[in-house]
């Protein structure tokens, strides 16, 4: 059934990346009957390879993108991002929180105003434009709390969050909208509260393109997945349209796949990097970059973690990692001293070793050992809110350093905007108050780790001078080149990004298939 296409077949659409954006887009195109070749840099694991990583960290090493990247500013220097290189992309590791953007979050320039240092811009689309695709995406992903799908039961860590949140007056507290089956659906079982979802779900209860979109696409006979295939550069003809993708296999052999249209979904560093690395005589600044916005406006959400030692046992490793959410702080309320909002979501310690390593990154000695002995009493939450786009936060190419493929190594720069700092301070206070209302013995505030939510480096804009692509992710400069992942986000919102990536991918597939049918590419 799984089809193969000839390298010279220029009627295929090439999708780069098989994660949330690429995996979904490829399947949606294949369902319509469009022939797709999907190039994925990582290997193809089967679900039986996925084990939780509670004992051995081997799973993480196998899934994580570890090619050289250089982080500067507030980022971790050697591991600025925490994302996957594997078939299924970061949906193998993601926690499954699946929230819609709010209406005003598509109009940040209009609603928030002109904020110094921020490169705010309204999206060229509205919540209303995206609503039908949110509906389809939620149905596809089996999101709890939508479409009559019951919510998951709350685990201990959630019940602590809920009790504390209610005690300090929060109203909107529930076990979330999760792309995790609460009952059997779509030939996948219900969650068994195994825990360690971010090591990969061993039973497939959590939606991942690895075992949903990709096999479904293969079943259409219109789709070929090429794992271990790293796209190196895009080539274009004299008309300025993309006509091929050069890629390398693990042995370093190079191939060129001819193509009709290319959709890039390599996550928010690799996507702009590929465009920049594809510079040519006609496009000396990189592809689709006449605006100069390729690589700029990198957003990663304003985050922070709060751990607390509670008066009773919690055992927070048990069950779904993101087990619930408080949404009261996600609204726009500038009286708090910042624009945008944030969500409060549960987080476990990721195992005893991780908690000991990260709780207080340089602490040691008997005092610290005594804190860790209270392991069973720990509860934890994650604060995740909107960060503002800034022109100087982003991805550039290192002038001399090359990776194993001979490509320029990406440098990623990020510094908090003062609004981000004000939000984080407020969010830490809220997180602390939740646990202190239940008489927590001590509370720990942890700064952001490597970025997991990556957005904005090839943003949508109404006018070509403000961004890279239009409301369908189609590049302003090159009509057969599409941005198909979180890179196209114009703002980051308070919500976890994946539902919006998936909804945009479904919308883009319909648009692209329509153009192809009309012979426009």
């Amino acid at each position, binding site marked *: 059934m799984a089809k193969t296409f000839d390298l010279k077949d220029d009627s295929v659409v090439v999708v780069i990346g098989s994660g949330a954006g690429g995996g979904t887009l490829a399947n949606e195109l294949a369902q319509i009957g469009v022939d797709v070749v999907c190039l994925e840099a990582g290997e193809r694991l089967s679900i039986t390879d996925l084990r939780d990583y509670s004992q051995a960290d081997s799973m993480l090493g196998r899934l994580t993108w570890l090619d050289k990247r250089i982080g500067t500013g507030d980022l971790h220097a050697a591991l600025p991002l925490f994302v996957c290189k594997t078939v299924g992309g970061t949906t193998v590791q993601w926690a499954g929180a699946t929230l819609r953007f709010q209406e005003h979050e598509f109009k940040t320039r209009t609603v928030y105003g002109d904020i110094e240092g921020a490169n705010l811009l309204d999206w060229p689309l509205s919540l209303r434009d995206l609503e039908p695709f949110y509906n389809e995406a939620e149905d596809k992903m089996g999101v709890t709390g939508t479409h009559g799908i019951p919510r998951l*039961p709350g685990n201990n860590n959630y019940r602590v969050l809920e009790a504390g949140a209610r005690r300090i007056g929060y109203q909107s507290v529930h076990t979330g909208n999760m792309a995790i089956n609460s009952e059997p659906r779509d030939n996948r079982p219900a969650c*068994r509260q195994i825990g360690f979802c971010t090591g990969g779900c061993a039973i497939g209860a959590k939606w991942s393109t690895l075992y949903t979109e990709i096999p479904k696409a293969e079943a259409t006979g219109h789709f070929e997945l090429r794992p271990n295939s790293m796209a190196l550069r895009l080539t274009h003809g004299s008309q300025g349209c993309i006509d091929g993708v050069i890629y390398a296999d693990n042995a370093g052999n190079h191939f060129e796949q001819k193509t009709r249209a290319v959709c890039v979904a390599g996550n928010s560093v690799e996507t702009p990097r590929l465009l920049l690395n594809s510079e040519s005589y006609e496009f000396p600044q990189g592809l689709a970059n006449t605006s100069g916005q390729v690589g700029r406006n990198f957003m990663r959400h304003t985050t922070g973690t709060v751990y607390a030692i509670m008066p009773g046992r919690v055992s927070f490793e048990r069950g779904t990692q993101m087990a619930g959410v408080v949404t009261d702080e996600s609204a726009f309320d500038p009286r708090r001293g910042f624009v945008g909002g944030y969500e409060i979501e549960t987080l476990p310690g990721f195992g005893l*070793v991780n908690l000991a390593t990260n709780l207080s990154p340089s602490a040691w000695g008997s005092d610290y050992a005594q804190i860790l002995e209270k392991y069973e009493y720990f509860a934890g939450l994650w604060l995740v809110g909107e960060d503002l786009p800034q022109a100087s936060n982003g991805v550039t190419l290192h002038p001399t350093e090359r990776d194993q493929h001979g490509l320029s190594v990406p440098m990623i720069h990020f510094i908090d905007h003062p609004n981000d700092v004000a939000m984080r301070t407020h969010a830490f206070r809220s997180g602390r108050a939740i646990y202190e209302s239940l008489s927590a013995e001590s509370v720990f505030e942890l700064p952001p780790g490597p970025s997991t939510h990556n957005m904005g480096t090839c943003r949508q804009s109404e006018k070509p001078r403000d961004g890279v692509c239009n409301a369908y992710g189609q590049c302003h400069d090159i009509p057969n080149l599409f941005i198909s992942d979180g890179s196209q986000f114009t703002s980051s919102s308070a919500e976890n990004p994946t539902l919006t990536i998936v909804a945009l991918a479904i919308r883009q597939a319909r648009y692209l298939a329509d153009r192809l049918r009309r012979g426009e590419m």
Partner: protein
Amino acid sequence: MRHYAAAVDTLRKKSHACTAINDLLLDVVAHVDAAHGLPWVDLSADARRAVLVSLERTAFFPVLRTMIIASLYGNPEVQKMFGYGGSSVEFGGYIGRGFDDIDWLSDN
């Protein structure tokens, strides 16, 4: 105490397999023995602590910290003592095994 010894033993095994770790550990031992004029083993607990504090800013200290944490808190016996449940796939998950057994939260 036994578990700390086991953690050190894990490091010893690692150092046999890897010269970089071996060199690092030799460097640590040289430092802690030299710090007070007396070998480490002859120092009081307070003096030992003072020696370690003086080494906190060395390049090897955080590496050593990470290795000790991994071997000490990665030890299944220690994890059991701490009440850390760990992997649950092989037991069918935490669904019938206390994922929601919290009993100290009052309802109001």
